């Protein structure tokens, strides 16, 4: 049982780390400010979420897990709020987005 928990927990932590890395790579690779925000969303949701899930499995049924759950809950609200604030500030600062002109059929 301990073994199963350890494997699950470390898979979550590792998965989270991979998604954080992918998000960081996306920030470098995408062409402009707005598209880079989407890469940040990957870190914000699945990256941080999986790391927290892995830590919760380590914590078991304890107050630590409750605190981690609350952290997750608040991150789900503050993450998009921060991203929206950045996007809106960029828009109001008249930062042009790279837009695909090709119309979908």
């Amino acid at each position, binding site marked *: 049982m301990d073994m199963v928990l350890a494997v699950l927990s470390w898979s979550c932590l590792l998965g989270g780390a991979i998604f954080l890395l992918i998000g960081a790579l996306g920030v470098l690779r995408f062409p402009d400010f*707005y598209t880079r925000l989407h890469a940040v969303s990957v870190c914000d*949701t699945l990256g941080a979420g999986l790391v927290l899930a892995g830590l919760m499995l380590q914590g078991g049924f304890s107050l630590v897990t409750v605190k981690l759950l609350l952290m997750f809950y608040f991150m789900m609200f503050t993450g998009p709020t921060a991203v929206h604030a950045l996007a809106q500030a960029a828009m109001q600062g008249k930062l042009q987005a790279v837009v695909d002109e090709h119309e979908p059929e």
Partner: protein
Amino acid sequence: MGKLRHAINLGLFLFALWLLLSGHYTPLLLLLGTVSTLLVVLLTTRADLIDREIQPVLIKPSVLLYWAWLGREIVKSNIDVSRRILNPTLPISPTIFTLRATQKTELGRVTYANSITLVPGTVTVDVEEDLFTVHALTQEIAADLKRGEMNRRVCEVEKVF
């Protein structure tokens, strides 16, 4: 009368939160926790912020159901965006478009706008009454959002707010 009930609810919720976060249950600390809870409720009342919107709605089944659905969407689009980051042959086609939200309450529209931003691949750039300006990473993601399933689900969950 309704206000008093909202205030009591808020107090109970805050105290429960304090209990969960503290982990120390000696009489002195419990007293301090009670005092700080009462102080926060008092300040909230003085600032005239006691209304329906401060009700802790996180435990209602329909809200949990919506979160479960949103969680699945988040995982799906995370994988989609991650593949586009890792594989240079998968194209991106960024678009900006406007979207009409049909929620009736402000809180419902906030939930919708925040959900859009939370899902990787779409960001709500601006909210003007019921018109959202949304930036999407690809045309497909944009088309998916325009189909309006999320809009419908938020309208559904909004009824318990």
